[in-house]
């Protein structure tokens, strides 16, 4: 399949062969999304983060939609948005409509996701939609972007929307083979780039990246710097398949314990732990793999951006 043009800055930069960094923004149950914009500004300030994902109701919770924050981030902050879209809440008609609407607003990147099931969120009795699955969503985007039609072949009037579409991959998946095969399917129907879930194991990540190489599609490896011990513990206990390394956990715990009462010192200690873990991690990935970049999911942890990325 011929390569789709790079409509977005992100894809352009990737194709230019630069090691890119993307960030993550998370609108929650908010009427005021000031914190999202603030965070976006911090990312912009780094000069390294060139785009940011805006999440779409993670963990199945009912949150502010992703489209509008995406638009505002682009308009007000000037940071390119990666528009996450799940198939959980919209049928193919709504998806089509939303994508077209988003494209009109100037959104250039769309990350197609299945979405955490409603049974995990705060509206467990909701009816999950799943009319399409994430692969079929990519197919839909491809049809819109490449053919200028909807799924049934009806033409979009006034030209084709200009979007690049990404897909997700999970380096923690076990068994891994079906995950790889699934990514292959997504690439086949038109994914322009791949963003992965968070990884804590550099060897594992390298292996995973190696396996993805065969699809000839840029991969951004997800990393998750952790702001405090509580989050790490929660992550470890409650997100199956993800295990935070024990040394990392204990180091965080120690950092908090040693600096009880002194907020700044505690922050410094924690940052140090993260930096000691991630700086070599990223260097290793950059040096030894064909990864196109890093997707840094340091939500609400803006102060780490500068020190983490300064050497990249």
């Amino acid at each position, binding site marked *: 399949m011929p390569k789709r043009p790079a409509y977005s800055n992100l894809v352009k930069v990737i194709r230019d062969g630069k090691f890119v960094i993307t960030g993550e923004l998370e609108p929650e149950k908010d009427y005021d999304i000031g914190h999202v914009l603030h965070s976006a500004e911090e990312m912009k300030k780094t000069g390294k983060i060139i785009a940011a994902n805006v999440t779409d109701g993670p963990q199945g919770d009912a949150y502010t939609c992703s489209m509008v924050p995406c638009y505002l981030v682009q308009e007000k902050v000037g940071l390119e948005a990666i528009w996450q879209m799940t198939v*959980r809440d919209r049928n*193919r008609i709504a998806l089509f409509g939303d994508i077209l609407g988003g494209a009109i607003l100037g959104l250039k990147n769309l990350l197609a996701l*299945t979405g*955490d*099931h409603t*049974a*995990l969120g705060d509206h467990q009795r909701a009816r*999950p939609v*799943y*009319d*399409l*699955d*994430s*692969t*079929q969503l990519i*197919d*839909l985007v491809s049809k819109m972007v490449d053919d200028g039609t909807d*799924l049934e072949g009806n033409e979009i009037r006034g030209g084709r929307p200009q979007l690049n579409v990404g897909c*997700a991959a*999970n380096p*923690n*998946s*076990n*068994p891994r*083979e*079906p*995950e790889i*095969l*699934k990514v*292959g*399917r997504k690439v*086949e*129907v038109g994914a322009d780039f791949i963003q992965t*879930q968070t990884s804590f194991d550099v060897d594992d990540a390298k292996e995973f990246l190696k396996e993805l190489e065969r699809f000839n599609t840029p991969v951004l490896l997800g990393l998750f710097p952790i702001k405090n011990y509580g989050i790490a513990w929660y992550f470890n206990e409650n997100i*199956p*398949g993800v295990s935070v390394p024990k040394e990392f956990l204990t180091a965080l715990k120690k950092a908090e314990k040693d600096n009880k009462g002194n907020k700044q010192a505690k922050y410094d200690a924690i940052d140090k732990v993260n930096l000691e873990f991630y700086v070599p991690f990223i260097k290793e990935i950059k040096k030894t793999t064909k990864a196109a970049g890093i997707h840094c999911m340091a939500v609400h942890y803006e102060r780490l951006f500068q020190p983490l990325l300064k050497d990249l």
Partner: protein
Amino acid sequence: MIITKQKDIEEIYDMIKPYSKILVAGCDGCCQPPRSINEAKVLAQMLELKARSEGKELKWKAITVLRQCDDRIAATTLRPFIEEYDAIVSLACGLGVGMLNRIIPTILTFPAQNSMFGGVENNSENYFAEYCETCGECLLGVTGGICPMAGCAKNLSNGPCGGQVEGKCEVGGYIHDCAWVKIWERLKKFNRLDLFTNYRPPRNYRIWSSPRFIHIYESSSNIEEKKKEENV
């Protein structure tokens, strides 16, 4: 088989509260666990005890029907009794309850059960598992005989999603198998991963819209269409 689950006795009792004479009809048909005469009798006894605890008397008869969803069988079995009773409580699936309401227009039939899904019994592990959603577009041929509709919480055609860990599904707390991992295992076993990697396009949900009818003679001669053609 249609897997059913008996409603709370409170709920059943609330439905039949206004009546003093009820016919409790079991069904020998396909509902699982079986709800035949014994179950009907136990339910009737429970209702009588419940009525008593509410300070009322309840007269009942327990009976069973070979298949409540068959209009002729249900009618011939139940009609001799209906004159003497004020209401029917059916232990069949929704089909049976609907059918009794249709063929017995004089009194109401109330469901004693919730119809859960089309499934089969796993004897060794003592549960009923959903096997088929009657989607009308069978995928089993390309999924190694495991249905991703009935087996996947997200009904994915192109799974697995990121919500599986070690082959278990995020929905329900990582207890149930991920259908897509199972599909992969099975296709791998038979060296048919080609089926797995294939992309399956969006499904046709038109055929899922209720109410659904299939004309019995649809396939042999489409009379309606022919009529239309003639009219045109």
